């Protein structure tokens, strides 16, 4: 039944609507694919019984003419989303066997529309990482390999499980989250489409918090249209998240395939960084040519503070993380490691429960917020953040969207950068600016490098203008005609 897992989400929904197969059949095909792909380590928890139950209920709804937008479609859920009655750990030891008694708003929206959950997807611990290597469950292996090689590559991070599962056809689409590039960089590394919507588009309620002013949920899917269908269901105002925007969610799929003639697309010159592989530079130029051919006007723009985005991020994000992660005290849920007194119990619990990268970021965050350093670091970073957001505001007076590479390289080997935090952080050099400014960004697979590995192009839009990204994104997708899939070796 492998052909069923090869369908796009759109084709699967059409097939269900036409009665060509049932959700139960589609679910069984996916459950088999998931079981056969454990070597990839994409799922940290499989929920086949629940999936089949949800599928049968979906088939019932469809028979009664009550099918929702996603009815009967199989999704994987990043382990950062709390799912009622299903273990949710953020891939950290400190959450142990935490089993939420509530459902995150985003996943509740997906179930409202009839989707079927296959299980929980692997990720970097608390979404802190760019290679999936900080997960307490071990790294995900990218289904892509260098042509003719068998070395293990990273699927990127933090949403590495989501990206790998979508690329390896272990679900029709997946939820993901993006704080500095965690949807877009893994999408680029796996030949999938990922969009981080405008900050506030998706509710953060029930998503384990990393850096609250940067975190946003979004989908990873195999086509631009699939991503649009998923985002339409995931997004929406939620009174339970005070930063959720009280705006209508458009039908994002209606923007796919629309003419992009006359749209102005900016090319930020500061994204041409030293040491960028020639192939990525060439792909970027190719993308420019594709959009010209589609009738877009190409405009060179300047975002002068681009190079300061990453260092500003590595103050703001750890500061917010150190505050958010203070809740893991071993008292109310998760791991508790007893000590001689209360303070020692806290210290032992957190020493044992957090991994090295999470501890590193908590320490940096605590340091930059501590007495005497707040102005020099945190306040300075918040001011630089304003400068970065102003850069975008000025650029968007002249253009409708921006086109950049998604990541400075293709997928790298597991272990290659894990000893050098700053080298790892540089992965997010093209994606992190968008989080700081709260803007939407999308990665679209656009080509293969000389090793046969996928590369992505990024589109950045105005706040709440995801629609334009879906239009331009589908133009890029059409021109790129990216049909490559990883050769099955697992």
């Amino acid at each position, binding site marked *: 039944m492998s052909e069923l897992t090869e369908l796009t989400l759109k084709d699967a929904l059409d097939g269900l609507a036409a009665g060509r197969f049932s959700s139960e059949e589609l679910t069984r095909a996916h459950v088999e694919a998931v079981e056969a792909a454990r070597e990839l380590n994409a799922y940290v928890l499989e929920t086949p019984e629940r999936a089949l139950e949800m599928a049968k209920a979906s088939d019932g709804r469809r028979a009664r003419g009550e099918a929702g937008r996603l009815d009967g479609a199989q999704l994987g859920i990043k382990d950062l989303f709390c799912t009622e009655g299903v273990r949710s750990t953020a891939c950290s030891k400190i959450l142990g066997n935490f089993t939420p008694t509530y459902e995150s708003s985003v996943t509740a929206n997906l179930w409202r529309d009839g989707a079927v959950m296959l299980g929980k997807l692997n990720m970097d611990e608390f979404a802190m990482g760019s290679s999936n290597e900080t997960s307490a469950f071990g790294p995900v292996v990218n289904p892509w390999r260098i042509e003719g090689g068998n070395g293990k590559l990273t699927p990127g991070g933090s949403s590495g499980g989501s990206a790998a599962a979508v690329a390896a056809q272990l679900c029709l689409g997946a939820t993901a989250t993006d704080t500095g590039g965690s949807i877009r960089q893994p999408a680029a590394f796996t030949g999938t489409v990922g969009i981080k919507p405008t900050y506030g588009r998706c509710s953060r309620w029930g998503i384990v918090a990393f850096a609250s002013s940067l975190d946003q949920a979004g989908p990873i899917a195999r086509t631009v249209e699939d991503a649009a269908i998923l985002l339409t269901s995931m997004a929406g105002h939620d009174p339970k998240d005070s*930063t959720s925007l009280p705006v209508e969610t458009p039908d994002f799929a209606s923007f796919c395939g629309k003419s992009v003639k006359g749209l102005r697309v900016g090319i930020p010159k500061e994204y041409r960084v030293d040491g960028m592989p020639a192939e990525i530079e060439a792909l970027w130029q190719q993308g420019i040519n594709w959009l010209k051919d589609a009738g877009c006007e190409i405009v060179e723009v300047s975002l002068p503070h681009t190079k300061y985005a990453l*260092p500003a991020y590595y103050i703001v994000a750890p500061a917010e993380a150190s505050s958010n992660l203070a809740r893991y005290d071993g008292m109310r*849920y998760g791991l508790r490691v007893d000590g001689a007194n*209360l303070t020692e119990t806290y210290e032992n619990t*957190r020493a044992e429960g*957090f991994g090295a990268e999470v501890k*590193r970021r908590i320490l940096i965050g605590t340091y930059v917020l501590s007495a005497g350093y707040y102005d020099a670091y945190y306040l300075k970073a*918040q001011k630089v*953040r304003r400068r970065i957001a102003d850069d975008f505001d000025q650029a968007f007076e002249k253009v409708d969207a921006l086109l950049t590479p998604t990541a400075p390289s293709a997928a790298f080997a597991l272990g290659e950068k894990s000893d050098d935090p700053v080298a790892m952080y540089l992965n997010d050099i093209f994606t992190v600016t968008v*989080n700081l400014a709260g803007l939407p960004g999308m990665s679209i697979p656009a080509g293969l490098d000389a090793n046969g590995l996928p590369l992505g192009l990024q589109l950045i839009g105005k706040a709440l203008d995801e629609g334009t990204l879906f239009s331009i994104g589908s133009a890029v997708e059409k021109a790129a005609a990216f049909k490559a899939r990883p050769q099955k070796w697992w």
Partner: protein
Amino acid sequence: MAIDAATVKKVARLARIAEPDDKLEPLARELSGILDWIEQLNEVDTDGVAPMTSAVAASLPMRDDVVTDGGDPAKVLANAPKTERGFFVVPKVVE
């Protein structure tokens, strides 16, 4: 070097993370490396720039001051490491 071992010890205590003494020196080197890289922010002129405290320009909404949730202690306690008769059991706080 921005941070020495004594500072790491102090910060780890503030963050309530037990770090063994032999880890302080390597951590100091690592964190200093990151902070040295962050220092480049000082090149940016931020005089008169208002700090950005929110990702989107939106004011926080108010809601009616009414109870919207609660009344389910079993759910609240469901994941607790230790409970007794409907309460969390925690280490002694006052000696």
